[in-house]
């Protein structure tokens, strides 16, 4: 037994040695040669959800100018990533957290995971997005959750596509809409909140029972709704989706163009601009951060023009900086949502769970 253990131990050491070496090989590539003469303690860590993305060159430029090396940690979707930060409050895994949106903002603030910091350049951010006056969080981007429609379907049927929430309960749009489960999907929740914003805390249930009578279909997540059930997306066409209306994002049509093979001259899908809920994403300096100075520099960088202009094509969201120009893809194929629906973050935090429960009982069961 003991000799077996020795051999096994040696084998493990060898195996781990090999993998550690190869892992080090990977790590070595991350250290860009000649990036800076900064010592290793100058690492700043950004914790985020899986959708965070930035162009390499943009990040490298920040590293060169600031002398910090940026490490990005991703951990699950927006809700899961934030909850992990709340759990590790006081002993965080990084210095800055990116990805709290307005539906989760109150939970983050109530749990006190952020240190107040007024970012340099905050006066360049559209004031309507600065929701926390204590500056525990800084707005970084915004995006709209809206109903998308399949242009070809409505052109074929010679029906005008719906534009508002009220349109969706009209008989000509019966059995056309697919939405996501509000309990498990963030666009699903966003669309529920849009109805709360429009019809109020008393009126939204009535609206949903009309939607249900009008044949709304509920699936679990965005992938399934958009890529399997929606007739206007590339994936949906292949899967023979037969629902020409889906809850997605205002940026989905430009994305369809960008990833079309070949790229179409015009987006195959459109946005019903009267059905939208606006999501705003924030970043904050984590309480107990090991590198607070670096964290501050990183937050400043996130609202800098350079990063703000890189964001739309990396994460398909809109910048919050006034001077950030949108890429051509967005100006050409995107829409401007003039009047998104809104619900105050504290109202969302207080009622979210009971709304979702009531919604589930009403629509799913």
């Amino acid at each position, binding site marked *: 037994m003991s*000799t*077996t*253990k020795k*051999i*096994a*131990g*040696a*084998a*493990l050491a060898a*195996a781990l040695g090999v*993998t550690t070496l190869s892992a080090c090989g*990977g790590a070595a590539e*991350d250290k860009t040669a000649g990036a800076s003469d900064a010592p290793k303690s100058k690492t700043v*860590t950004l*914790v985020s959800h*899986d959708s965070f*993305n930035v*162009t*390499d060159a943009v990040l490298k430029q920040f590293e060169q100018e600031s002398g910090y090396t940026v*490490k990005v*940690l991703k*951990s699950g979707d927006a*809700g*899961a990533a934030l*909850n*992990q930060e709340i*759990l*590790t409050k006081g*002993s965080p*895994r*990084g210095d800055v957290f990116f990805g709290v949106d307005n539906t989760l903002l109150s*939970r983050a603030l109530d749990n006190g995971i952020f240190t107040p910091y007024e970012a340099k350049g905050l006066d360049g951010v559209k004031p309507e997005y600065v929701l926390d006056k204590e500056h525990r969080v800084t707005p970084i981007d915004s995006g709209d959750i809206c109903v998308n429609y399949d242009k070809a379907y409505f052109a074929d049927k010679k029906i005008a596509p719906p534009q508002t929430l009220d349109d969706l309960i009209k008989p000509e749009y019966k059995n056309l809409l697919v939405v996501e*489960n509000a309990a*498990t999907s963030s666009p699903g929740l966003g669309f529920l909140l849009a109805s709360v914003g429009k019809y109020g805390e008393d009126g939204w249930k009535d609206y949903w029972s009309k939607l249900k009578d009008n044949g709304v279909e*509920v699936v*679990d*997540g*965005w*992938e*399934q709704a958009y*890529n*399997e059930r929606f007739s206007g997306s*590339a*994936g949906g066409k*292949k*899967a*023979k*989706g*037969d629902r020409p209306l889906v809850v997605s*994002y205002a940026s*989905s049509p430009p*994305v369809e163009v*960008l*990833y*079309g*093979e070949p790229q179409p001259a015009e987006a195959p899908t459109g946005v019903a601009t009267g059905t939208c809920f606006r999501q705003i994403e924030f970043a904050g300096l984590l309480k107990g951060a090991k590198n607070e100075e670096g964290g501050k520099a990183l937050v400043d960088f996130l609202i800098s023009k350079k990063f703000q202009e890189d964001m739309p094509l990396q994460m*398909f969201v809109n910048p919050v900086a006034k001077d950030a120009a949108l890429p051509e893809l967005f100006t050409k194929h995107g829409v401007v949502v003039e009047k998104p629906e809104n619900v105050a973050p504290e109202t969302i935090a207080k009622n979210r*769970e009971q709304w979702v429960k009531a919604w*589930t009982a009403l629509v799913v*069961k």
Partner: protein
Amino acid sequence: MALPLAFFGLFFAYPVAAIVGRGLKTDDGWQFGRFGEVLARPDIADVLWFTTWQALASTVLTLLIALPGAYVFARFEFPGKQLLRAVVTVPFVLPTVVVGTAFLALLGRGGLLDERVGVRLDTTVWAILLAHVFFNYAVVVRTVGGLWAQLDPRQEEAARVLGAGRFATWRRVTLPALAPSVAAASLMVFLFTFSSFGVVLILGGPAYSTLEVEVYRQTAQLLDLPTAAVLTMVQFAAIGGILAVHAWTVRKRETALRLVDPGRTTHRPRGWAQRTLLGGVLLTVALLIVLPLGVLVERSFDVPGGYGFGFYRALQDAGAGGGTFLVPPVEAIWNSLQYALAATAIALLIGGLAASALTRRGGRFVRGFDAMLMLPLGVSAVTVGFGFLITLDEPPLDLRTSWILVPLAQALVGVPFVVRTMLPVLRAVDGRLREAAAVLGASPLRAWREVDLPLVRRALLIAAGFAFAISLGEFGATVFIARADQPTLPVAVARLLGRAGELNYGQAMALSTILMLVCAVSLLVLERLRPDKTSGEF
């Protein structure tokens, strides 16, 4: 014994206890009253009931469909057998996201079944059950078939010569010998389907929810730790119950079997009955496994205007037009392989040591240890992942941002498989052989090398294959454990599917196809591995 215990204590028991403690302990002490509150909720009762019956149904269905397959793979020789054995194992490692997509393409609206027969099965229980069979077919074929191939056919022949009929022979010779591995396989399938997550989420629609889905929702989304803790304890209790039943049924059954080289027991199918059986099994495999996989492959080549490699070419450039990754998706393959190698090494070491310890000792304590090793299968990835967060945060063990955490978590799930696969074979090794070797002057090590190793080598390779495959396809833990940007294949697929646009969808299908290939090739290589008999190291 000490090393597996330490490993489990540190990376499983402690984190899980900590997160459960968070939920159940307040400043006023333990709040056991919460059990009553949570379990009295009708929605929770629904979840419990659904979880249990769908797991039972899935297990029975899997056994019915897969046992003939196990026999065919064990006893028949036919062209392409090695390849097919690898193919049936592929589903086991596919991320549920991919499987869900494939099954929707088959069973959903406008899917193959809908076009041909006009039947839709998505958002029904049937879709969930079929997907579970698809996933777990290999578990039965490999665990039961592995032993079946090594049963000495002369025992059956002897029974026949002594006048037993075909059925009596099967009932009194073959079945008792197979029972431990059938029980082990059923147990694994049950545990897997009991804690099913992705399949239920995607195919079941929002109306069905299992305990695992509920724990995930309560922990990751709602941060309702008390409810999550209660549900985790319920999961524990359920698994404890299953394991107890299992232990009770097999305790008296494991006898020393005469194991022979599998090459000696196979033969070409003779006569119409055997040929029909082979044909039936091949047809089942084609419909149940090859078809869903084929749909994915077909879609990965289905570029606009015909078929081509367009999506595969697109995988190589990072950030063309704003890619999803800081690295090209192709690099995810390399990441996955590294993690899988590390996870396999850890799982084999821990599982191997545990299995030998279990073989050599008896008694209640050891049986408890055996059951403990199975627990990670039934505890949701999110519980373990969140447990890591609040426990492994002190130097020298601040592993929260370390890459080793991913293979460690994957190995936790792999170890039970290694133990389950090795144990029946190890126990079946006749101790007298070892004694004989010792009497003849062999050192314990040499005795182990000359006696045990040749007999268990096959089981070891199968176990390694399982551990490797689990790591390749593992998605739950990998998603929760924060890592610097090194996406594994399943994570990369999920991210691609999470974006609009034809190119992303196509790339997701292409990457899934690559994942299948990587897995099939790794499994084939493992099966071919024949360590040199003269070297004592492996």
